[in-house]
């Protein structure tokens, strides 16, 4: 179960709280997964008491067309804050040894990118490969290929969402060193095993999946690896 409480001394209009919170949550807490299980209890509560606001401060109102500089600034603060808080949860994933960022770029829309990212993040085979420090990009690609809405061809032109010949997968090292390209536009690359091992030894790792040619929408999702310890913790858990 995920629980969170956030408090601030900014003054916010009561009708606007939900808009600030929904926007922030959709980019943070709704973009993490440890084990793919959505609890019966997940809750994020938010409180704003205005205690630090000057007497002449107008409570923030989050309107549809709001270009108020304070609203934009506060939303940015909240988004960043919620993201940092959400990432702490991933870092403490049961049995986790890795913190994984999955970044998917699609030139179709954000939804297509996010579906692919969620599918990779929830793949037991991807997560166990990461635990084993194996550069198994095949499992990553497989997970992209079976993502909901991508295999289905009812209301969506599934072929358009992912085209194998335009798909690339890379590992991005957390130390800022050069990207390791594993698949480039559908063609597997000769992988430097030594380099792959160096990257996978690090605790933090980014998986970049490109599904695009044109200007991309980008979805970012965070997860952890899947270890023996996760099974031990949950097998030993007593109700």
């Amino acid at each position: 179960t995920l629980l969170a409480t956030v408090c601030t001394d900014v003054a916010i209009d009561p009708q606007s709280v939900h808009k600030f919170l929904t926007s922030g949550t959709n980019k943070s807490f709704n973009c993490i997964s440890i084990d793919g299980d959505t609890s019966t209890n997940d809750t994020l509560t938010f409180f704003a008491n205005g205690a630090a606001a000057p007497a002449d401060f107008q409570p923030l109102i989050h309107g549809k067309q709001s270009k108020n500089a304070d609203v934009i600034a506060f939303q940015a603060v909240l988004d960043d804050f919620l993201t940092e808080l959400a990432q702490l949860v991933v870092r403490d994933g049961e049995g986790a040894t890795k913190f994984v960022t999955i970044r998917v770029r699609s030139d179709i829309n954000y939804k297509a990118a996010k579906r692919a990212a969620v599918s990779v993040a929830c793949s037991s085979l991807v997560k166990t490969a990461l635990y084993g420090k194996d550069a198994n990009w095949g499992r990553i690609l497989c997970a992209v290929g079976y993502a909901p809405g991508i295999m289905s061809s009812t209301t969506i032109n599934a072929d358009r969402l992912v085209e194998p010949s335009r798909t690339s997968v890379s590992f991005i090292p957390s130390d800022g060193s050069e990207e390791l390209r594993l698949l480039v536009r559908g063609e597997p690359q000769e992988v430097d095993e030594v380099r792959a091992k160096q990257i996978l030894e690090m605790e933090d790792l980014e998986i970049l999946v490109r599904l695009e040619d044109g200007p991309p929408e980008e979805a970012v999702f965070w997860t952890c690896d899947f270890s023996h310890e996760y099974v031990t913790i949950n097998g030993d858990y007593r109700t």
Partner: protein
Amino acid sequence: ADRAIPAAKQKYVPASGTYPKGFLAGSAFAGVKASNTKYDDLALIVSEKPCVAGAVFTQNVFKAAPVKVSQGILAEKKGSDIRGVVVNSGCANAVTGGLGNDHARAMAAATDRCFGHDNPESLRTLVMSTGVIGQRLPIDKITSAIPKLHESLGSTHEHWLAAAQAICTTDTFPKLISRTFTLPSHPETTYSIAGMTKGAGMIHPNMA
């Protein structure tokens, strides 16, 4: 169980913080789970004056009692005049039927009474719970401990950290962050934001 923070995780636990004005936090022991005989398992985060509030909740069909009760409180109060949130670890109070809903409301009502508000038809405290699904709360233990919880409130870093620790279940470290910021209209005014979270398993939030 041993609650020592693993060496590799200690860097994520802050030694200090900057907390928003007018908020208090605290923790207390109730003994919600039989196997826990010493660690605080109740937390309270409140505004000294009732304030604006909101929340996002699980979309799981089997919404726990505290989720349903908190949704109801926010709807009834239209997001205003809310005091804070009371949290227990050790039991999720989920799939517990009508009695579970009553217990969640009892937690809110007991907390309200600590602040001189005694109207079970118009509750001001939100409720969160975490732990095993399908078991009822030991509600008498919890409501008996809530006055102690109220007395534990404070505004120091240690108070906030204790609350963050009390909501943990299988977490290996308490998760608490805080920061200050300014807004363009009044750059001379410093605001604060603080937050705590918990979770290490059964994590794939899809909140709305």
